[in-house]
């Protein structure tokens, strides 16, 4: 479990280990789906949808206390809005890396 997430979730949920585990598990599952969705969306060239997916990743990451992931998602939103394929691909690659560390 990612250390910063555990610390944040423990603080937010009063060290309720079971609840923290459940929320963290849900976070991991959602990231797996969302990062894959971001990759597919970029491949399809759907910038609007990519912006939305990045927004969802940001919201979920903030909820789990994963500021690093949230920051990358914020940058991805910007590149998606600029239709910048190269930068978007790089950022999604970073998201993939972070997701694998969860």
């Amino acid at each position, binding site marked *: 479990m990612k250390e910063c997430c555990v610390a944040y979730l423990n603080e937010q949920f009063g060290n309720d280990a079971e609840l923290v585990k459940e*929320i963290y598990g849900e976070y991991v599952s959602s990231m797996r789906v969302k990062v894959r969705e971001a990759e597919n969306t970029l491949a399809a060239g759907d910038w609007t949808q990519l912006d939305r997916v990045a927004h969802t990743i940001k919201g979920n990451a*903030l909820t789990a206390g994963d500021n690093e992931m949230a920051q990358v998602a914020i940058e991805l939103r910007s590149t998606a809005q600029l239709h910048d394929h190269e930068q978007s691909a790089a950022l999604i690659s970073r998201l993939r890396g972070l997701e694998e560390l969860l």
Partner: protein
Amino acid sequence: MTQHGKYETKILVLDDERLIRLAVCARLKSAGYGSVSVGTVQEAVSILKVHHRSFSAIISDIMMGDMDGFVFRDIVRGIDESIPFFFMTALDPEEGSGFLKKILVDPMSYYLPKSAGTDVLMKRLQRVVGARRIQHFVENQVQEQKKSLALAAHVQRSMLSPRAQIGTRGFYVTWWRPHESVSGDLYEAISLPGGKMLFVLGDIQGHGTNAALVMMAVQAFLRQMVEANLRDARSITPEIVANGLHAFFRTNFAEVSYMTALICIHSPPSPDGAEPEEVSYITCGAPDLVVIDPVAQYIVPVNPDRRGGLPIGMIPDTEYSTADTVVFKLPRGMVCAAVTDGLLDISRDGEGSEKIPRDLLKRLGFEVLGDACALGSLVAAPYKFAKACVEFGYNKFNDDVTVMLFGARWCLDGVYEATTPLSPALVDAAARDMAAWCAARGWADELSGRLQLVLGEVLMNVYDHGFDDLQRSKDVVGVRLRRAGDNAELTVWDCGRPAPSMKVAAGVTSTAFEIVNKGMSDHGRGRLMVRQLCSGIQRQRFGALNETVFYIPWNNAEEGVQTA
């Protein structure tokens, strides 16, 4: 849909991400709130349609797969216009999407960042939900207070004397209008030996429930005091009544309340005419008695020395004496008018800055009294006077208002006038009394019979359909009968609900008219019969007073020519 616990305060959570729903509901649970979480707008709407009252707030995402959060809010506002709505979003106010502006368009919408921790979420939620809870509490209290006031108003009305009475030797009529549901004004009309009447018009300091409670206590005391002294009518004088009321006030309401009052004893002229009509009165801080000659349109000066005393209960050692009392022999045909100062506060505006001019009050009073006297009844005069003020634009009543007219019974030749309590037991007697008057003047039996039928049916109709059970017990109906051209004109005044009007399209056949007429009659006993007996019926409303005029043909083809 996922429901978390059974709590007093429940929040509806809408987000298409399960992670967010899970985290928000866990936070709510830790703070003691229940929650229901849903992933689609459709689910949320179907729950709110049925159960919106059981939720204290809504927390919703803005950017969702199936719908925009703002569209969801629009739907919610169609269901519940005031439920607090929190937008919990990962959108950044600095992104420039303008979502904050959209949130703030609605006064019951709030912004919560998704990055906000449990503390921030709970503080905002508690503040808003707490305010809504207080708002609901206050609304419930207001509803309860309205119910209590309605009951208090009914009790208060039932404590007042009947609003009008045409006696054998004297009469009085009143118009009593509370500023709010209940009034601090009181009027009392108590019969004394020898055909005399004691009239008390009081204005308790302030208005509303407190003044009304004091008023009811004063009325109960006043009646007891008069009852205890009835054996010796000489012991009932205006100053003695004032002193008794003053002692009662000082004992029970010292430093809490006081009352301005006009206390009058009216003595009608003796039947043989040897003793003239007389009024003795004391004003205790109240507007002076006005004695009006309605024919000459003139106010008779009765208190040039400005006699009177301080308000009752105001200063501890006050004692009222004969030196404070006015005694005046009334010329024939005078009308005495007693008013509370609320009459002088009638204005064009709610603030009372443009009050009704005294000259206009006087002019309207003369006109209304002049007309009423010419037509033979003052029963409706105070109501017509009030309506005249309103028609001149003075329609803001900033205080309780009471108007009381009284004097010796006077009868216009050829005019029958009476009042009768609204009671089924007295309806037939009232109709018979009028028929006897007709017979005594040589009106044809057939006409008298028709008039008797009409009045009896009309009174029963008012009793059955004009009031609910609580209101009817104290109402008095006024009646006037006279000849008007080819008709006998019977006027009935009551304070019940106005009768519904009957609309028949132009050009319908008489059969169609009768069908409509029959339908109308089903709503009230005797209406069909009354319509068949009358050549015309006219209705007008003066504030709470209905004036219905029935025209019964004087000449009937079968009867030949009647004589007056």
